[in-house]
């Protein structure tokens, strides 16, 4: 893969936000070109061509974990920016906590049948069960929210990685497509091979860590599309467009 990063004295590092900005402030940031003021992006009419080369078309697969041109907006989106890919971790990666939730729903009934709560007053057993189910609901809800809203977005201008580590901690990383070096993918292990998902790592020329999309479906296609978008941007820059 050619080195698609061109050092041009503009070594803008990936931008990481761990802030809690009000939405209006964020929207204001989204106006008037890129964060580095470059405003460079791949024209929308070329996106279809790039997707066609990668064997893709607008679609939504795997419960929204792999969406091509979903037509969705995201925070800090710029006026002439379009979402090309919206990725989440493969749904199968949720199987661990889903099994725990199912176990959590079954467990109280089993324990009552066994008779472990016989010495406990009935009202405590009743309230205990309700509170337990509430806890299980809360656990499941938190896991779902962290999965559903931790997204990796590829636009015609940049990569945006939104990670919710837990309920109180959010990391938003932006990397312009003309600042990336080598998109790469890693797959391995039985589950990843069976369900066709893996990690996509995009290195940048800056000191900041790489941008990663972990456990996303079809990592080969993601790498191909990101590479094509970046190359197209580079060609346009060379032509002075």
């Amino acid at each position, binding site marked *: 893969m050619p080195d698609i990063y061109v050092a041009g004295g503009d070594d803008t590092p990936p931008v990481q936000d761990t802030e809690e900005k009000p939405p209006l402030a*964020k929207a204001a940031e989204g106006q008037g070109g890129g964060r580095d003021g470059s405003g460079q992006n791949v024209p929308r009419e070329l996106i279809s061509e790039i997707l066609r080369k990668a064997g893709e078309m607008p679609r939504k697969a795997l419960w929204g974990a792999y969406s091509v041109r979903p037509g969705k907006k995201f925070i800090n989106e710029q006026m002439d920016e379009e979402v090309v890919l919206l990725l989440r971790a493969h749904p199968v990666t949720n199987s661990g906590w889903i099994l725990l939730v199912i176990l959590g729903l079954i467990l109280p009934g089993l324990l009552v049948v066994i008779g472990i709560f016989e010495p406990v007053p009935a*009202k405590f057993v009743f309230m*205990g069960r*309700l509170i337990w189910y509430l806890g299980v609901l*809360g656990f499941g*809800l938190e896991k779902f*929210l962290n999965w559903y*809203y931790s997204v990796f977005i590829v636009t015609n201008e940049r990569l945006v990685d939104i990670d919710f580590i837990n309920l109180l901690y959010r990391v938003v990383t932006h990397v312009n497509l003309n600042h990336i070096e080598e998109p790469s993918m890693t797959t391995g292990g039985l589950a990843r091979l069976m369900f066709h998902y893996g990690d996509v790592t995009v290195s940048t020329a800056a000191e900041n860590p790489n941008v990663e999309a972990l456990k996303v479906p079809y990592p080969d296609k993601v790498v191909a599309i990101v590479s094509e978008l970046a190359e197209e941007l580079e060609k346009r820059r060379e032509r002075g467009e």
Partner: protein
Amino acid sequence: MENLNNNINNLGPAWEFLRGITLWGVVKWFIVTGMVLYMVFAAVMVKQAGVMTESVESEANSLVKLLVRVHLLATVVLTVAALVVL
């Protein structure tokens, strides 16, 4: 022994209070305290769901907001129920 009994009786209302403490009474207040702490978690979840739904546009956003609010409401109801029923 008689002196001890006299001293205990002199404690008055405090002694009466201590005599009223039962195992299940303690358990009840543990549960209520836990539920109040859980209520804080549920409220944080409502706030965080707001931040999350602002991040990405999705068809599920309104459902998510509804779910976290129902979760908070259920927490409040169960906390009150724990106080009343137990």
